């Protein structure tokens, strides 16, 4: 009988996991249904909204588009891995200060979408922020506050 399941070993937020998965499972399914990390959302399951954005080996990806069979040996960072205990990440602090979320469904995706920009820059233009977040939909259209939040986060980083 052909094998439709695969054993994968990978890290999420620094923690190692080994799972047997149905080959059809996406990274999003693994996070939500097997690891109970429900921060990444299933807005469309087709890579068209960014609500499932996580960091895979340093890059922002739509986790719904990543088949689980591809992530063995990979390192994944999700929204749940951003804060350290009670200490919020500057992106999280700034999103709160700038009211960067209304219904909040897109918020984890936007924060993870902004994360690579935050990591790599000490100075960003609004245009760069827009381009980095062009794959994330906010249906409440809180885009203005989201841009302010990313600017503010980098400000926190720079000011220390």
């Amino acid at each position, binding site marked *: 009988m052909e094998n439709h399941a695969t054993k994968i070993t990978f890290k999420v937020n620094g923690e190692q996991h080994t799972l047997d998965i149905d080959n059809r499972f996406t990274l999003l399914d693994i996070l939500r249904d097997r690891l109970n990390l429900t921060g990444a959302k299933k*807005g469309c399951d087709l890579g068209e909204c960014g609500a499932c954005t996580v960091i895979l080996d340093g890059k922002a990806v739509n986790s719904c588009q990543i088949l689980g069979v591809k992530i063995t040996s990979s390192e994944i960072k999700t929204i749940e891995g951003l804060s350290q205990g009670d200490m919020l990440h500057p992106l999280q602090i700034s999103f709160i200060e700038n009211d960067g979320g209304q219904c909040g469904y897109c918020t984890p995706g936007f924060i993870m979408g902004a994360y690579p920009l935050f990591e790599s820059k000490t100075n960003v233009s609004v245009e760069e922020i827009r381009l980095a977040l062009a794959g994330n939909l906010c*249906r409440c259209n*809180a885009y203005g506050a989201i841009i302010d939040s990313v600017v503010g986060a980098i400000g926190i980083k720079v000011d220390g």
Partner: protein
Amino acid sequence: MVDQNIHSSSVGTSFQRTDLKDKVLGIAKYTADLSLPNMLHARVLRSPHPHANILSIDVQPALKMAGVHDILTPFNVGVGKIAPDVPILDTKVRFVGDEVAAIAAVNLYEADTALDLIKVSYDVLPFSTNIDTSLEMGNPKIHAQGNIVNGGPIVEARGNVEEGFGQADYIVEDSFTTPDHHPASLEPRAALASWDGTRLTMWKPSRGIHADKAILAAALDVNPNNISVIGPVMGAGYGSKDETRTSILAALLSMRTGRPVKLELNREEEFLAGRRRHSTSTKIKMGVKKDGTVTAVHVKTVMDTGAYLSSGPGVVRRAGQGALYLYRCPNVKYEGQIVYTNTPTAGSYRALGAPQGHFALESLSDQIAEKLNMDPLKFRLMNHVGPEGQPGERATPKNQIIDTQPVEGGVPFSSNELRQCLILGADAIGWDKRDQITTPTGPIRRGIGMSMFIYRGGPGGQSNAEMSLDKDGCFTLNVGFMDVGEGSSTVVLQMAADTLGVLPQMIRLNSGNTDNTPQSPMTAGSTLTFSAGQAAVRAASQLASVVIEAASEAIGLTDAEGLYITPDGVCSMSGDGVKFADLANKSGLLKAAVSVTPGSKNYIVNSFGAHFAEIEVDIETGYVKIIKYVAVHDSGRIINPKMAEGQVRGGISQMMGFTFLEDMEIDHSSGVTLNASFLEHKSPTIMEYPEIEVIFTDSIDPVGPFGAKSLGETPCIAPAPTIANALYHATGVRLNHLPFTPDSVLTALKRLR
């Protein structure tokens, strides 16, 4: 007793949105994030036909699968209804995507496989994907009573339009259409139902848990006392996320299997089986005298409601509010008709019919101004309805609350700063330099346009609230409404805190569970801040009296005079006092419960505003770029400026979809919706987001809690006509059909060549 107008310390400040921390941490739980042990997963079988009778359904091949536990069909769900025209499942299907059967299985892969095994025998019927076809259709009609809802239009009138037109020197008429775009909230509908043999617990995104409970009780024929509805954090709905079959199907599957059942719609299903905006076709006619006075307004609107009625009556009525009330005019008539088609159902979506109505009204207003050779701003300054209201005689009895969508004249507004909106906005956009910017630069044309609006201001249904002092010295505010993501929880907390005299962070808001919250209407029609706010303020005010009374006893005073509440506790001039925690422990439970019927017997409570936009059009590509957008709103006192600004910017940006991009595309030969995805139903991204200047007028409404009026939906009304008018100013071409895609702009501009 606290005086609202003096004491404010949180109202008017941007207190942090109460649930934002959980959201940025990724720990806020939405319905799809929830799980129960032993849970089954449900999927829905949907009709491939736009109009058909179901002759039989063979579920045996699917039931044979080991992982399938139950299947619902129209033949085994009983006769319950979700709405007057929507049985739980019907032997007739009315659009491609209509619910046919529902499966509960151990996982979604099993459920999907099982769906393919169900055999349905259909008797396919002739169908209609547009209003004209629906009107010409023979039998069988889409619904037994006919394809025109109620057999004809609603008619609302004041004065006599025939006479009004007779008095006019100029009459202008035109036709406009608006698309059936979709709210496409990022969270698709979901429901988690758990039946334990006697009691049903339902978790679902909800803007009215008590209303949902009533629907469940009626549809399932279960005693409402045996139903708990819990609203988890909600990924928005913009008004649209109610009364579909989703939760009822999950509930029935749970009741029949004895296991919890989770039903999540996928994105395609949310588009098909959710609720879109009503598309409209409007004929509008206005008459004016040479001096610019408006003598008559006559509007006929036909709306496409799709396969079911949903909130159509409310929407069609709201579409006429502008025509009937925005311009001061003794003779107005609005006729609004709803027609069924075999397409996905239309329902409530932010501002209901007002965007459609105002698109026609405010476009025509500019055309009238042009006929008069009058500046469009001047025309509006001359004719907008003023604080005194419309001419005429009040018809509502003196002891009854005035409708927020009146037709009658003779009633003033509680507050009306429309004039201020027009003046402030014109100044901010640079209206006086308008005619200097129209010189073409190559293929680029520039223009500035504007429009104004009127909308219901807040009074809604009866609203209840309870407030109590807890043993730990904090307070609990208990309300039945739901924060749908727009921030009503925060705003109500601020008002309650200021009324009581404490800090908002000292109040716990308890909401979201029908078991322990008082009855409350839905979060709808921008009524929350006003209605729930009013209830919270009364509850806080009453609690203040109760607390002061109890403190007086606790301290050992003969009367309560001189005692006042501070965040630290109850204090007195003489220095005696008691901390809240001590008071709670001494006095036992201190609480207040109120029920308010919000509204005014003397005034119309309405919100107003004016939007202005400077745009650039590339006449060779059809692209429109927004250079500057100014939105001025009269919503009375702004309780939380940052959140309010977010509502305005968000609503405007959202409606740029309506204006430029979004339209649900139906294949006419099959009834299939072709673009039921985020890729193809193109909502604005961050790249589209324009710079928006938001101005709130300096006003305090005498009726609203802390002087506040509605705000949530109002930003959605003016964007489309504002852009249309700016486009006309830029190109000399009027676009009457939304959305203004590059395709439709280019097509319209060909008139120039």
